[in-house]
């Protein structure tokens, strides 16, 4: 098998950040390809520095390479300068380990973590030299598969992808590999029957083969998605790994040679979240909560630090402060003599309360410039709608603790364009930020509060999947309103995401199969790396939409009815549609739900459907405020005079 390195090497002096393309990471493996071994090319459709730390990809990389009947290498999207150089020199997409052309791989497997990368997926399929459309691929062509959170509405990419994988990949990847071993071994390449492969894959639980489903449209609107042919399940349900303790991966995390995002050790402490934030797709589709045993966490941290030489570890999950016994776990890590007292622990998505900040201060040896909290909504009213039950008391207590512990900067994440949002909810963000500045000034004369504001994009399999997303004009109006309000407070800075990007994300998030042609047009017009601010162009999307006779109003801004067919009705994350609709109605009525880890079951479907339970070590909620559970919600909006210093 011929390495492309000599050709690639000639291009690297001409491009930016050439270390993106050399591989050589600690932990990389150089497997021997051969008959009887399915060759997987694991792809992250963004740049190397964004894609390398992705834990899902690293886990599958190890699991596949541990199998005697599989080999796996990795590839990332070449930046535009490298892509141009590759196309000019006739160099196809290549793996970073052995610099082998994509054409020697049996499977191209994409990680889909964000919708705006869809045009990159198409571009990489093209750079690999494959026919763009799944329907045009022959027996000898590689199979294109995709998994990750975005696979829960697979329809926009259905034209390009042979099979989608739903949910946790640890087990299903092996089952797919077995199907492929049999299929590849059954006939020489040109005689392989792709139809037989599709049918065999569709029999694997959690695998969705779009060619076996037909969307039905009436009057320009989707009315149903039907299975085609016998033995094809009407609904494909996600896979769920019951016990994370069975999967202590990555065992040897990749340590890159060049700078990447999250350049530290990452150890996943649990999967799933039951806080029930209604805007959060990740929280909904990854239920139930499955904690890793604390002892295994400690072992993975110790081994990972010794292996990598990192001096920082992040305990990852959707809400790491909720891990049972988090305080003990982090203290054990920090005080472990094996690490020489030089290790710092960071917890992403800090829970918003003073208690958590105290813990953070204790364990975070390296003080970052600031602490980040995510109240998401500017008023208590708004937060009860989205079920992010952070009381004013908890938020100001957390901010007070942060400033008193020596931090000078606090960053707050908010969403705008949420259901039932009124202008006072938007200006409430500025008011809340101003109070935080005021609290900070009690501790230090110059403090900064940054309010980072994103436009809300409704996602599939959430209670807000029926909601009509705000238009660009409306989001821009709200951003202006907020900036105007925030201008009065020195020390308060407002940052916002491009409202236009939320529209493109909305198209890719809730579009049906007709979006495929739109994505292809955007790609043909040069629209790659749309998740990069400097590359994003809403005009490309609107032109493509117009050319396909589709409208942004229909896909993004229109509220759906209870009985309307949704493009992902044949895909199940385990959540009952009744539960989601009921939760949507509750949101509109400002009825909150508590965290079901510690309260009676709402029967959302995530546990019962799989015969699972939440795997939680502690029977009681974490101490020190818990965003809803056991709180008196009637006083959640009360502003604590004690902290703010004056009644307001």
């Amino acid at each position, binding site marked *: 098998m011929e390495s492309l390195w000599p050709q690639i090497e000639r291009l690297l002096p001409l491009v930016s950040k050439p270390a993106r393309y050399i591989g050589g990471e600690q932990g990389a493996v150089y497997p021997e390809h051969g008959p009887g071994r399915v060759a997987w090319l694991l792809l992250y459709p963004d740049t190397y520095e964004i894609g390398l730390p992705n834990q899902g990809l690293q886990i599958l990389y190890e699991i596949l390479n541990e199998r005697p009947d599989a080999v796996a290498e990795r590839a990332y999207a070449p930046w535009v300068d490298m892509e141009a150089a590759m196309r000019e020199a006739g160099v196809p997409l290549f793996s970073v380990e052995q610099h082998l052309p994509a054409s020697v791989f049996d499977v191209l497997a994409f990680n889909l973590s964000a919708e705006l990368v869809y045009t990159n997926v198409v571009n990489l399929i093209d750079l690999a030299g494959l026919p763009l459309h799944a329907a045009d691929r022959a027996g000898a062509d590689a199979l294109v598969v995709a998994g990750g959170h975005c696979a829960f509405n697979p329809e926009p990419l259905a034209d390009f992808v042979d099979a989608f994988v739903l949910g946790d990949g640890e087990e299903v990847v092996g089952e797919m590999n077995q199907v492929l071993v049999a299929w590849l071994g059954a006939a020489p390449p040109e005689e392989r029957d792709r139809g037989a492969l599709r049918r065999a894959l569709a029999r694997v639980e959690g695998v969705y083969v779009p060619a076996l489903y037909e969307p039905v449209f009436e009057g320009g609107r989707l009315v149903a998605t039907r299975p085609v042919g016998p033995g094809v399940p009407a609904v494909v349900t996600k896979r769920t790994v019951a016990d994370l303790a069975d999967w202590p991966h990555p065992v040897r995390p990749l340590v890159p040679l060049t700078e990447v995002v999250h350049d530290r050790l990452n150890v996943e402490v649990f999967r799933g979240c039951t806080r029930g934030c209604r805007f959060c797709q990740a929280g909904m589709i990854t239920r139930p909560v499955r904690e890793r045993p604390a002892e295994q966490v400690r072992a993975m941290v110790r081994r990972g630090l*010794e292996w990598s*030489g990192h001096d920082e570890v992040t305990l990852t999950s959707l809400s790491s402060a909720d891990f049972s016994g988090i305080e003990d776990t982090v203290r054990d890590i920090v005080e472990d003599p094996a690490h020489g007292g030089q290790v710092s622990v960071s917890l992403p998505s800090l829970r918003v309360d003073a208690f958590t900040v105290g813990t953070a201060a204790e364990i975070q040896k390296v003080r970052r410039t600031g602490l980040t909290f995510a109240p998401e909504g500017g008023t208590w009213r708004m937060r009860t709608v989205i079920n992010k039950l952070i009381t004013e008391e908890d938020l100001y207590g957390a901010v007070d603790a942060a400033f008193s512990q020596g931090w000078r900067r606090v960053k707050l994440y908010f969403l705008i364009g949420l259901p039932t949002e009124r202008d006072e909810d938007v200006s409430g963000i500025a008011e809340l930020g101003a109070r935080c500045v005021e609290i900070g000034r009690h501790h230090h004369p110059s403090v900064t509060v940054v309010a980072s504001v994103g436009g809300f994009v409704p996602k599939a399999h959430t209670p807000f999947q029926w909601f009509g997303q705000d238009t660009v004009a409306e989001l821009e109006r709200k951003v202006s309103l907020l900036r105007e309000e925030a201008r009065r407070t020195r020390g308060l800075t407002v940052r916002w995401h491009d409202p236009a990007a939320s529209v493109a994300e909305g198209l890719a998030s809730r579009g049906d199969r007709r979006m495929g042609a739109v994505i292809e047009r955007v790609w043909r017009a040069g629209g790659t790396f749309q998740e990069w601010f400097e590359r994003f162009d809403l005009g490309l999307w609107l032109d493509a939409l117009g050319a396909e006779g589709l409208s942004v109003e229909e896909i993004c801004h229109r509220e759906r009815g209870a009985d309307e067919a949704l493009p992902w009705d044949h895909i199940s994350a385990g959540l009952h549609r009744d539960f989601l609709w009921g939760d949507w109605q509750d949101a509109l009525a400002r009825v909150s739900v508590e965290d079901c880890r510690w309260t009676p079951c709402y029967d959302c479907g995530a546990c019962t459907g799989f015969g699972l339970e939440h795997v939680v070590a502690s029977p009681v909620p974490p101490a020190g405020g818990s965003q809803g559970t056991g709180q008196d919600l009637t006083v959640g909006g009360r502003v604590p005079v004690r902290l703010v210093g004056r009644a307001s």
Partner: protein
Amino acid sequence: MSTAPDGRPVSTAPDGRPVSTAPDGRPVSTAPEGRPEGTERLRLRLRFTKQGKIRFTSHRDVARMWERALRRSRLPLAYSQGFVPHPLVSFGLALPTGCESLGEYLDVRLEPAALGETPLAELPATLSPLLPEGIEVTAAALVDEAEGSLQQEVASCDWELEVPGVPGEELAERVERLLAAPVLTVRRERKGRQTDDDIRPAVLAMSVTSPDGHLRAEVATHPRGVRPADLLAALGTVSVPGRACRTHQWIERDGARFEPLALSGHGPGAGAAQHARRAIPHVRDGDQPDPGGSPAGGVTPR
């Protein structure tokens, strides 16, 4: 406050010696003052190569690789005091991304009693397996704290350059013209701005070493370094850059010239310097040969 080639600020102590600065700009004390007798920190100098695929990593990337490798080595690193403690490591001249080297250096501060268990001579063989393929530690020695920093002391360095697409005879003529020119103006980018610099004073020597387009150059490092790309621009070659390898760095003192750490024989700390070939490929799991692993054509350590 001036700026090191890697862009980090370098401040100067009252005695004129540069002092390392932490990323946050605060000076880092490496001086032994105030420490009880016999507890002075050790200053360990390491020499290493950078060859093959890894040449496409940056100077900062190499610094990060070293920090991780040193932590894994369990050497008792000295840390800076303060809010953000970090290991006291200082690097020499930055190597431009894409260039190879047979002579790169760093100084590491160790707590005393550091080398009680690890003989100095074994350090290269101990450290090399902790570093990626293409980086090999070739010498180690303790250096006196009174000596200046690498950045300050190194006065010139030697390069072997590949100049593709220029026939040997023509290359020789161009080199002759270059050396005869009183002024060599090269347009280059510094801090995002285009500037015109005369690099002629910095070109100390240049000669063609083989008829297939290889040359050797010695360039001064002060007041401002000259990169291989500058030399090629001055030679009037605009094609794809060939391989470039820094073969030596030189310190001049009292009319003598020596390397910060010699592979054999001369220079400070030479007695302890140890040249160790790397025995076991680490980092990589497979036995994959590195197709980019051979040094640039015609370059051999002398």
